[in-house]
């Protein structure tokens, strides 16, 4: 009995004494703290993602609309075609800016003086004249008529109507002076200002004027570049994966190839750009800024990803498939091409799409091979100068105009949309064809 009491008291000593209780509380507190650190880490990552996305969308969504002004334009014959020749050459060389200026003057007849007039004209985009020219060239019968035309406002006026140029700061600190603000207010009161969906942004090439700049050139350049990348890295990657996984003997040589591929996957992307510059441009003399070269560089960069994904997919096909095919008399090549490869294809495609998504977001190696040039024209072929979406983002991010901040964010939104689409496709493909053996 006394022994039992002793044992019990000792047990209470170790586990229920005050010291023990304190120790336990400390340990549980440490446990809770540790778990909180984990939650905190997740919180930081989520906060960063949320901050990133809201800051991009918050800055960018306004770029999808555009402020325009409806002006009564007199297509005056004595400005466009004084000799009534009807010749296209005369019409295309005429001074359309004068039409815009005179219709602005009609709106504000009491504006006089060179400087005031220039300030007034600066409210409307220089693209207005091009728009009128296109209209007249498309329909020469407009000459001599008068009609209401909606033309784009300049980037500063656009920023004003979107609230990024504030009227309550001092005149010297904003890009529009008080008189210009007054004119814009007057135009709005007369109901001439409209805010419409910005088709220019989606359908035109780059421009020095933010209100005329668009991403279509970059989108076409991206498509061409990725097309080259896909055409090169998919067949080569699949062939390499098939060889390494199915046919290669295990020896020094294949070991070397394997180590090589794993290392290449971790080489900084800019080094691939240096390779492209030294080999493709300087040694082989291929053209600068061309989607062909960009695609080749990105293909070399994406190749390890495709090979590694392809090998994983091939490895996942159970050996019984191979044995069955060999058993009925297929040759090793027939076994792989007709039985193993088709089963592994969804996995290979998923890996390829993920690799292409990485290539789509890549810009550093393309800077090296000159795809950073300012290019207005929509690229027409694999060797015509062009740029890609991420590089366009980089170029616009460097521009000082406030309006380009909006365009940059919007271009990023388009880029992210493409990325989400590609990743979604990869996920769906995996879901649909995922096979448990």
């Amino acid at each position, binding site marked *: 009995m006394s022994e039992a009491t002793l044992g019990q008291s000792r047990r209470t000593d170790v586990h229920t004494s005050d010291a023990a209780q304190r120790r336990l509380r400390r340990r549980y507190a440490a446990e809770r703290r540790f778990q909180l650190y984990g939650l905190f880490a997740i919180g930081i990552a989520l906060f960063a993602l949320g901050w990133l996305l809201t800051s991009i969308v918050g800055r960018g969504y306004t770029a999808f609309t555009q402020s325009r002004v409806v002006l009564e334009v007199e297509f005056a014959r004595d400005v466009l075609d004084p000799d009534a020749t009807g010749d296209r050459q005369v019409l295309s060389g005429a001074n359309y800016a004068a039409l815009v200026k005179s219709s602005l003057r009609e709106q504000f007849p009491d504006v006089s003086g060179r400087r005031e007039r220039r300030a007034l004209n600066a409210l409307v985009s220089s693209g207005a004249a091009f728009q009128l020219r296109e209209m007249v060239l498309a329909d020469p019968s407009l000459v001599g008529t008068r009609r209401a035309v909606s033309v784009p406002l300049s980037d500063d006026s656009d920023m004003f109507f979107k609230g990024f140029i504030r009227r309550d700061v001092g005149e010297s600190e904003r890009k529009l002076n008080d008189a210009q603000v007054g004119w814009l207010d007057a135009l709005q009161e007369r109901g001439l200002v409209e805010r419409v969906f910005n088709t220019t942004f989606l359908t035109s090439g780059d421009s020095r004027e933010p209100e005329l700049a668009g991403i279509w050139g970059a989108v076409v350049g991206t498509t061409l570049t990725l097309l080259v990348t896909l055409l090169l890295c998919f067949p080569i990657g699949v062939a390499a994966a098939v060889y390494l996984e199915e046919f290669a003997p295990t020896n020094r040589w294949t070991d070397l190839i394997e180590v090589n591929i794993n290392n290449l996957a971790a080489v*900084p992307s800019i*080094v691939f750009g240096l390779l492209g510059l030294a080999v493709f441009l300087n040694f082989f003399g291929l053209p600068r800024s061309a989607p062909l070269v960009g695609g080749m560089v990105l293909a070399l960069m994406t190749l390890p990803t495709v090979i590694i994904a392809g090998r994983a997919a091939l490895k996942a096909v159970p050996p019984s498939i191979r044995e069955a095919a060999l058993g009925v008399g297929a040759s090793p090549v027939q076994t792989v091409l007709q039985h193993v490869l088709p089963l592994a294809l969804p996995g290979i495609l998923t890996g390829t799409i993920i690799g292409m998504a990485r290539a789509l977001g890549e810009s550093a190696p393309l800077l090296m091979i000159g795809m950073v040039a300012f290019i207005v024209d929509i690229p027409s072929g694999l060797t015509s100068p062009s740029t890609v979406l991420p590089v366009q983002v980089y170029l616009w991010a460097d521009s000082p105009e406030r309006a380009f901040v909006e365009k940059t964010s919007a271009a990023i939104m388009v880029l992210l949309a493409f990325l989400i689409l590609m990743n979604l496709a990869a996920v769906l493909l995996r879901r649909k064809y995922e096979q448990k053996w």
Partner: protein
Amino acid sequence: MNLLLLAVLLALAGAAYLLGRRRATKLVGGDPRALHSRPTYHGYYVALWCGLPALALVLVWWLAQPQVLDRVVLAEAPASVQQLPPERVDLFLRDARSLAYGGVTSGTPTPELERAAERFRSLQTAGRVGLSAAALSLAVAGLTWGRRRVSPEFRARNAVERSLDVFLVSCSTVAILTTIGIVLSLIFEAARFFALVSPTEFLFGTQWSPQTALRADQVGSSGAFGAIPVFAGTLVITIIAMAVAVPVGLMAAIYLSEYARSSARAVLKPVLEVLAGVPTVVYGFFAALTVGPVIRGIGNTVGLDVASESALGAGLVMGIMIIPFVSSLSDDVISAVPQAMRDGALGLGSTKSEMIKRVVLPAALHGIVGAVLLAVSRAIGETMIVVMAAGLAANLTANPLEAVTTVTVQIVTLLVGDQEFDSAKTLAAFALGLVLFFVTLVLNVIALRVVRRYREQYE
């Protein structure tokens, strides 16, 4: 023209396939059992003979044409041109080419230039016609030869499979060729750089101002190519990025693999992956436009002077970018720790956090170290964030609030824009690239080896 030729060749190969197949079937009177190989293999065989030699010829000519034309034109040029120094000869040829194919020349064309351009044009036309004729006759010859070989005993399948094998092997050597290309191009250009600037000055000098080397007759025209400030800047930014990415990434991985319920894990993991999928140029924009000003604002309220392109801003954002990289790699190694070890620790009465800290993390240490090394190599090679958010001027400082520059930023600024290709300024970029490649390669090799050893431990 080239495309048309390729299309014709492909069409011919297609026709060859059909011809070969038909001939094989006809030879045995429509009974495929009498053939060694199935008729399609005979078709492939003829098509390969028809297409491959011709395509190889086109490829070789396409690669060799520029050099051949240059040689011929130069050999026929007057002696006054041939005696020019090499760069001037290059300029002459470039001008002649752009005059011939409709580009911009560097001056008003001289009669010699006009003649050279005319020669370029005529040679190109001749080359085109000759190539087409040669390729087409080669294709037809191949077709005839291949078709003649078709017979019931002929082992067409084995021949086709052998050529496929060659194709597979050559595709898998592309990876090796890429590495060799990288190493050779970096070493060659860097060697030219080190002929101008001594390696010790490059590796240990503390002055970096390549932009002064603009004019040959300028004072200090050689520029200063001491890369220590550039390396130091890279180090500062990498350390900041790691200080963010390693604790956050590791704790996130621990939480996800040990604490989170599977439903939470199913949502949180893909969300973290989104961070990894955001293009780096987007992070750069975010760092330059959002994070930079915020840090500057905080610094101002505290009374610190923060540069607008501070190392802190770029490093923080780079750290955010690397979080998912660290967390997914550590997640892999943590889940590879055998469950028995966890159960043992819990059975002895340790709390979950004690189990993780005393058993799981020590067991996974190798893998985690490997993951961190890979993350460091990623941070060193990251380009767009630092190009957009870090400074351009080399600044030897350890203060994270000042602007510093990195290896990748210098490579980009030295190579983007107008460049004369032989100046020390542009070649310096390749020397920096060589250092970058070498350092990341060493990090990767060590990391991959460490991870591999770790995997073997538990398999």
